[in-house]
């Protein structure tokens, strides 16, 4: 198993958050994490991204524990819902800064710019870009060190139809390259068209783990928004 999560827990004020949750992920899976607002989807991904520290439990990627941060971050790239880039600087500067910190050669920056069709924007300041383009730069940055696992938190939130289609294409390309992907989503069509497996969280607990076919035939899907 590439990802092993055992009793991973995070509670905010003993109410919201993630109750003890366990699951495993095989290499190359594309998993949709589904649930209401406050169900614990983002908490789960942010814990795996080291944004939030778990109260208890364990998470391993390729045998490396979450708590060994400097080694763990080489295994996982995280794309948050709101792009977090240095707005004052250019696309190229942002990627080069992180390439230095990842100790990745600048050649990789050129590759990412090419792969994500960012070459025409390389000298543009981030603050001048649309959200879709910023998201593309964010994804490119997450892939700079070529991590085997990628996490996307609401990747299509705030994107228009064209940008959403473009993002689906990118996700499929990244998945086809052999990466394992976990993404959170509210959109049934997104889940249906992308995911190879679905995890449903409700009030902090994992209530469903199965294939898209099982999910869409289950009562969970029908009742999810009635739960």
């Amino acid at each position: 198993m590439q990802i092993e999560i055992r009793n991973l827990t995070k509670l905010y004020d003993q109410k919201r958050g993630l109750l003890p949750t366990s699951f495993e992920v095989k290499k190359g899976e594309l998993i949709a994490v589904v649930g209401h607002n406050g169900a614990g989807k983002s908490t789960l991904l942010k814990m795996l991204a080291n944004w939030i520290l778990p109260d208890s439990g364990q998470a391993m990627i390729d045998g490396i524990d979450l708590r060994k941060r400097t080694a763990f971050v080489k295994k996982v790239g995280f794309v948050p819902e709101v792009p977090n880039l240095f707005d004052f600087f250019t696309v190229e500067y942002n990627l080069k800064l992180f390439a230095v910190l990842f100790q990745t050669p600048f050649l990789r920056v050129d590759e990412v710019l090419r792969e994500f069709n960012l070459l025409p924007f390389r000298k543009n300041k981030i603050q001048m870009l649309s959200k879709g383009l910023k998201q593309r730069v964010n994804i490119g940055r997450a892939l700079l060190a070529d991590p085997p696992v990628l996490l996307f938190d609401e990747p299509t939130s705030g994107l228009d139809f064209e940008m959403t289609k473009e993002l689906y294409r990118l996700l499929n390309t990244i998945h086809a390259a052999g990466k394992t992907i976990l993404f959170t989503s509210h959109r049934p069509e997104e889940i249906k068209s992308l995911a190879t497996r679905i995890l449903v969280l409700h009030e902090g607990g994992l209530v469903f783990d199965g294939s898209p076919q099982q999910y869409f035939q289950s009562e969970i899907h029908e009742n999810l928004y009635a739960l």
Partner: protein
Amino acid sequence: MMRNILALLFNDLAIALKNKTIYLILFIPFFVFISLKFTDQANVSVGQIKIGLVQGNTYAPKIISSVKAAEKSIVVTWIKNETEGRRLIKEKKIDGVLLKNKNDPDSLTLLVLKRESFHTLAIVENFSALQKAAEGISANWIADIETLYPGDIQKQTLPTWILMIVLLIGFIILPAQVAEEKEKNLLLALLQTPIREGQWLIAKVITGMVLTFIAVLFLHLLGNFGVENLFDYVVLIAVGGFCFSAYGIFLGFLCRSQASARTLGVVFYLPHLLPSALSDYSQQLTVVAPFMPSYQFYEPLKTILLEDGRTANMPFELVYLFLVGSFTFYLSYILMKRRWLMR
């Protein structure tokens, strides 16, 4: 390790350049320099004293005759009443008014804008000389004045300006920069790389120290202020820069947003600046001020700049500043490890 620190340091300095912080720390010394240019200096010639005499008052004849005899140094303006005198003083048309003393009709009261000014001193000195001449006394009891802090007022106020700049960078600029990185999740993005928390903190502290050195150097260049013991001065600025940069970074970690960091910065800035800077003028503040780290920076600063002191004679202050800096650095490290107020 060094590579990461340097990359983060250059990034922080580039941010300071882009968000105009660097202009702020250059503007402040420039503003200070311009203000000092217009400040009265100890060796400035006051020139003629413009004194007001009230028309209805009966002054002793020897005073009137002495003042008239000294027409080269004293210009007399006759005014209708005290109210007019107060107005003319405020308008800087006269330097003072001689009034009848309410308690002793044989003596006078001098009405001036401020007791502690060169003009007041000049009036008192001139009238004292006139009185001695009129009464036939030739020698002064005090023949000369020697000051503990030599130099003009520009140099004497230099430690206050340096303190202001160091605290401004520590308490206003750095907390806002740290809080901005937290608010925009930029710090979390950096922590998704293999850098260590300590490397980020070291880079941030060095950024604060570099900004401090730039501002201090600029002020010295503008005012052409020399320093006798340069090495000691550099050591003190480095230790002070470290202390207040680390302190400011810690304040930034206590805030979720830039706005709250600015508010908290001001809350810490003024109590650190005012008691120390005003301790020269108040005995009560001299009792309270030593409890502030700023005072432990300000006193050695005065000693080095105004008395050509050496850091070898101020180990307590240097160790104190270093310990405060190290302690707040450690607290920031703990908060960073815990992702304090980060989303």
